[in-house]
């Protein structure tokens, strides 16, 4: 086989892959719900990332009396200390979103690894470890979180760890089930048959096929992360930094007089999560539409 043909082969493969990608993308792009979702996510991410530079006031500056109504100086009114809600909304997203995302990715990632490992062990060991794992499902997470935060203090690392920890047990369970389903498939046998190593099988056969389950789990857990972060703040176990979760907590007392101080971050979080869900649903619809052909 000459070189030219080899290149051709490679090119052919790539072209095919590209066309597949575009077709999913096109399908996604044609779906109005997915588009709305994507726009929502992008909007919030833009706010989160470049928001701090757009804030009309320094988020720490006092621009009026506490809980002042919206006015020309403060687009969304002021918060409990008289600071500009709009500026704080713009500036406070990054920490919150980063904390939520890091916690979710870490927790789901760890859970995925544990789930995969448990599923590869012998049935007996696996089931034993699983019932230990279930213990952490049985103890309501918020209780454990309170204890851990009290123990280690409410710094951002601890918060992220606690939230991450709260996901591990569930994800482990979900991923183990998904992995067991994949492990029993013949293509894993085939991979063994051509002499792929365990690590290779995990990375190349199991992982890509557990990934869809993992992505769904990630979406659910992401919402849970944000909610837990906000709830911990509410119970007085949050960090003292400036972020959306704390905004909700600080200003909740003034909701009757200055609802924006609470609702602005709540809506921002809601829009982000709703957008993420729409996109995720859209992608799975597009993929399944492809599969159904």
């Amino acid at each position, binding site marked *: 086989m000459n070189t030219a043909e080899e290149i051709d082969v490679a090119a052919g493969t790539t072209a095919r892959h590209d066309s597949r990608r575009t077709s999913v993308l096109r399908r996604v792009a044609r779906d109005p719900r997915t588009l709305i979702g994507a726009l929502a996510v992008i909007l919030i991410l833009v706010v989160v990332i470049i928001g701090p530079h757009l804030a009309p006031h320094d988020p720490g500056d006092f621009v009026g009396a506490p809980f002042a109504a919206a006015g020309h100086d403060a687009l969304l009114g002021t918060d409990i200390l008289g600071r500009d809600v709009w500026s704080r909304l713009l500036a406070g997203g990054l920490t919150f979103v980063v904390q939520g995302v890091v916690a979710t990715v870490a927790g789901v990632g760890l859970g995925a690894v544990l789930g995969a490992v448990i599923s590869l062990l012998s049935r007996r060991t696996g089931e034993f470890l699983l019932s230990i794992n279930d213990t952490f499902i049985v103890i309501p997470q918020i209780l454990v979180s309170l204890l851990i935060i009290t123990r280690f*203090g409410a710094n951002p690392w601890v918060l992220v760890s606690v939230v991450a920890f709260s996901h591990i047990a569930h994800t482990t369970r979900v991923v183990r089930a998904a992995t067991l389903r994949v492990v029993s498939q013949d293509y894993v046998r085939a991979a063994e048959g051509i002499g792929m190593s365990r690590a290779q099988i995990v990375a190349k056969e199991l992982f890509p096929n557990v990934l869809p389950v993992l992505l769904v789990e990630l979406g659910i857990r992401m919402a849970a992360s944000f909610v837990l972060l906000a709830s911990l703040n509410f119970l007085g176990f949050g960090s003292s930094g400036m972020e959306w979760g704390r905004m909700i907590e600080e200003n909740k007392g003034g*909701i009757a007089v200055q609802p924006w101080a609470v609702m602005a971050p709540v809506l921002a979080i809601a829009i982000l999560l709703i957008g993420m869900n729409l996109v995720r649903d859209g992608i799975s619809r597009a993929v399944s539409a492809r599969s159904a052909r």
Partner: protein
Amino acid sequence: MEGIRGNQQASRKRGFGPGGRTAFAAATVAVLAVVLTACSGSDSGSGATTSPSASASAAIVDGGTLRVGITSLSTSDALDPAESSTAGGYAIAGQLYDTLTEYDTEGKVAMRLAESVEAGKDASVWTVKLRDDATWSTGEAVTADDVKSTFTRIFDQKLPPSESLSYIDPDQIAVVDATTLTFTLKEPTVLFPEALTSPTVSIVPQDFDPAAPVGSGPFVLGTNTPGTSVTFTANKKYWAGSPHVDSLELISFADASAQVNALIGGQIDMASGLDPSMVSTVKAAGSGFVVDNYATSGTLTWQMNVEQKPFDDPVVRQALRLAVDRQQLVDQVLSGYGTVGNDIFNPFDPMYNSTLAQRSADPAAAKKLLEDAGYTLPIAVELTAAPLTSFSDRLNEVFVQQAAAAGFDISFKSVDSATYYGDAYGTYPLSMSYWGFLGIFDQAALTIANDAPYNATKWHDDAYDKLYNEAVTTVDTTRRTDLVHQMQQIEYDSGAYVVAVFLDSISAYSDRVAGYSTYPNTDGGNGYHFNTMGFTS
């Protein structure tokens, strides 16, 4: 009066009365008795009930249940006053028992169960004369023997006040007649009448049983659900007159919004110890509610530990004090419900030095001070504080921000009080405390002078101590005031506390409630004097 009290999770920590400790001993002297008796003896009948605000009593119709939402009940609230160490415990004790003396509506020491508390020829012998119309809720008269047994019980059982009242010699309490007894102190102190305002030395009968508490106070215990609510019924035979209401409920709210919601929803009649940020919510709820407030000597103060860097350098301390924008703290954090402090304590004390120039924010000057002293800015410091009140975190947050403008990089670590008072206590370079209801001498004795026991700043100044020691032995008011002014000048110039704000006590109540008055040396709504309150219809 007691050292530290937080509204919420604060200060179950220290159940002590004002402290006569060894430190105190040396510094004792004759009298003050003149002053003390002067402000006491006169209108003995009045005690708690004197000077209710003008609007009060006339319109009040007796009867009804007064439901008061407070933020501070906890499961550690004790029914035994001597074991009491919590704000909730004090609130309960205030209803069930009487103290011999108390702080009145102007923040001065007044008589309650005592008709007079008079020093002998020096401050080592005190004669306490009881009012003769006081009875226990069981109907028997309160006698000098009861007072004596209250103290012997405290010392026999080594209850907490035995530590703070160590200058009292339980064996030297002599019953003169049914309503008179004398205390011969181990160490003379003019602070004796003030010390007796502490709820922990509430007078209890000789056969006192904490499980079925009997007192002489305005109310009798109904049901107690620790940490949730306590109910009382009126003591119709109370010596100062029966309370206006038939019964009283103290209901705990962990969350300030829930407290206000309950008021607006008509589930409580009064919200006591309101978070300043909730005032606008109450006001927005309509005309059916009244918000009342009075200035108190209570303060959340920052403590700079002079044994730790960088506060070992007075320049740094002065710079930090210059960095604080006090008015901003009052306006933004306290929604205006507070007064500006000047780094010295208790503005309600007649000896308070009001001649000192009000310190105001000057971050540029602060920076210059630091730079001139050779510091490279910013100076990094950690601030450790417990959430002593619902707004103390916010106070710290703004404080940190203000300090940043003056070249301080303060990282704020909020820990709960159990952690705060844990092993690391005393080593925090910068921390926050709640002080209230102490006279200037008391404050000095506890937190400033002569290696005071609760001096988290570790600040020590020989000149100050000398002045203090002299002041507490000085009879002449003018001279003593002058000495105190000098003490406060030293505190002002080189002290280690940042006393930036004094907190208002804020209450909101239904417009059907009347009888509210001010008690600058107590934090609870109406100074927890619920017997003077009632409904107008």
